[in-house]
């Protein structure tokens, strides 16, 4: 285990040590290796953004050599598959991705400037629950979790979604993060019934309920939520034990129905922050290459096979960090 203050940028020398002595090309996940010649690669050599783009590698060995000798600051590959990746032309399909950056998530329990164990843990929880919905509701398979160095990428290679448009991807994002308050009035037999999201334990209302629960249990006095004033914030904290026990009706009663409505509306808009939606709707993004080094924080970007047992501070720290003074 390393302490946070070791997460400082890697020096050029350390990058060299990493790529020449520790890194192994075989650690690139199969889902990338199998489609190597269809993807665009991009590199950041100087730490000023990935300016070296439109790279294509005909074989794994060429990629291996490139990384060994150039030891870039950062390496990326496209989520898109192209007929002509060198020109980013002839788009075939793209992975569906969700980017959860621990630095940017709402309701962070820590106050760290970059990332730390606390917020990374939170990111991990979110990723788990997003996975549940992708599988349980949407029935998607072939989902890979990548530790990015500062958070997680969920990369879906299920063929049934890879050709989908940005619009549909946008809808998926909004669904899984709970970006909208579900309707609460339902008509049937000429009558209108009121049913709050928490009394419907399936479908989108359930997704939303889980998000609201998470939010309420993580709210602190300094949290900022649209339309929620200090008084309401205090009451939410005061009564949050009811949510812990899933006593939603009681909680809503204590807070009052109008203020409850205001609260969940605010939470819905806060939910937009769980993932970076821009990444999900961009069919031509490049994402950090698993196995490569995140030089800014000196951590490995890597595929995570067992999310529950994954600890970035144990599993994603390159050897050279331990040798630092």
């Amino acid at each position, binding site marked *: 285990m390393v302490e946070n203050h070791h997460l400082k940028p890697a020096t050029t020398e350390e990058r060299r040590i990493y790529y020449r002595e520790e890194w192994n090309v075989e650690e690139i996940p199969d889902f990338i290796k199998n489609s190597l010649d269809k993807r665009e690669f991009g590199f950041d050599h100087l730490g000023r953004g990935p300016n070296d783009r439109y790279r294509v590698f005909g074989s794994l060995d060429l990629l291996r050599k490139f990384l060994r000798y150039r030891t870039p600051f950062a390496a990326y590959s496209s989520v898109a598959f192209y007929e002509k990746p060198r020109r980013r032309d002839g788009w075939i399909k793209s992975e569906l991705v969700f980017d959860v950056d621990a630095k940017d998530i709402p309701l962070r329990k820590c106050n760290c400037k970059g990332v730390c164990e606390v917020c990374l843990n939170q990111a991990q929880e979110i990723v788990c629950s997003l996975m549940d919905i992708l599988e349980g509701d949407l029935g998607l398979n072939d989902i890979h979790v990548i530790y990015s160095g500062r958070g997680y990428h969920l990369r879906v290679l299920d063929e049934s979604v890879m050709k989908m448009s940005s619009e549909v991807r946008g809808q*998926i994002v909004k669904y899984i993060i709970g*970006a909208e308050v579900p309707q609460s009035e339902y008509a049937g037999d000429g009558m209108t019934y009121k049913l709050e999201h928490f009394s419907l334990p*399936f479908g989108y209302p359930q997704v939303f309920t889980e998000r609201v629960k998470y939010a309420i249990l993580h709210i602190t006095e300094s949290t900022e939520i649209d339309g929620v004033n200090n008084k309401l914030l205090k009451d939410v904290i005061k009564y949050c034990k009811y949510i812990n026990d899933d006593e939603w009706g009681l909680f809503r009663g204590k807070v009052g129905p109008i203020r409850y409505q205001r609260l969940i509306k605010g939470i819905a808009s806060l939910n937009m922050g769980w993932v970076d939606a821009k990444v999900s709707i961009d069919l031509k993004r490049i994402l950090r290459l698993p196995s490569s080094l995140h030089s800014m924080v000196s951590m490995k970007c890597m595929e995570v096979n067992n999310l529950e047992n994954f600890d970035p501070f144990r599993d994603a720290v390159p050897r050279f960090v331990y040798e630092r003074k």
Partner: protein
Amino acid sequence: MVSVAFINPLSVEGRQVVREMGNLDSFREENGDIINVVIHTRSQDISDEESIPHNYLDLAVKRLEWYIKKRNDPNFDYNKYSFLFNYKITRFDVISFYLLCQAVGVKFGPNSRESRAMVESQGKLMESRLSEFSRIDREELIKKILDSLLNDERVKWTFFEDILSSHKLKLEDLVMDHGNIILNKEDFIESFSSKIQHRDPDKIYNMMIGDKIKELIMNRMIMQKTEDYIYKVHQKSRREIEPNPILLELAEKVSNVLSESFTSYGYKVGVNGEVKAAPLNSNAFPPCVKLVLEGMKSGGRNDAIILFFTPFVSYARLYPDVFRKNVTVKVSDVDPNLSVVQNEILPLVYGAAEQCTPPLFEDQPQEKVNINAKLGFGMHTTVDLKHEGESIWYTPMSCEKVKLHLPSLCKPDKTCKRIGNPLSYYIRKLWESGETNGDHEGNEE
């Protein structure tokens, strides 16, 4: 029994009707059978000769007019269109549906306001027609139609890719279990009854799914098929020589119906009401634009100024009617010597950039180039007519896009409920305050 073609003209039954239809030229001629059905429809207003269609062309026009008037005309008289809800009209109605689609497809194509109106009117017409049936009949019709639309009992949500993509359907509207859409009570009970406590799963099913989702899916699928059909006609017509004059005549009439009273993107304009370019009124700006003016924090600064604000102010100032006009223009078409761009738009954009913390151009002066690019002047450091056209004049982001790209900007107020684009918000506000130059006939709520 009612034919499913009454609801779905694109069904096998509907297509059968079209196959039997006669020569296009006869469609202008007075048709006694049509008149007969119309005047024998219960509650049909026959006092006014104008409201009785005499031939197929009339009927087609009325079919669309019903929808447009219903939306916009405060004095809309339902009884003038009762015949549309008489199932005996089916045969003629189906033919007029195809005529409309063909006319729109040939003349305007799939991305036109005419096409949009046609598709929406079909959706509304199906909805209204179904609501007039008894519950049992309605259920049966929906079931029949859905069965033919969905070949399989088990439908995955991915099957609805196109209606999700065009936002005709929201993913949240569907109830799913491992990718399958739950439509039948048996499936619902099997998937969820164990989770439902203190309530009767049967009842919950009826409320949440029942016929509602089925009807919604059916409706949206047929709307999509209508759109697809218009697209097909359009593609085909481009390969053919002369379109039939009857179709062109009908297209003209359709266009007139829309211009007379058209609602687009939720804002209303009167008879031929144009929204003309005029100096900006910041009081009418939507909440998202006001927020940008207040200054952005570093995250999202670039996108907010370049992708969001620049297109918004430039169109709001120079070409607010962009979404109604269905023609793309260049900045110089509306600001020939670029004086408005230089004296009003760029200063406003730069001002907003200055408000950011840190000011945008301080650390990223190169972004000025991107602003010029979004105005259509290519990647250059100045706006110059000789570079115009090297890039396109970026149209304003829709609210949907804002919510995805720049979620922190969207703080919707009451007016936002009625619009889909910040620009429409602006126009609506102007209009409400009586500031547009259009003719303000129409209903003001």
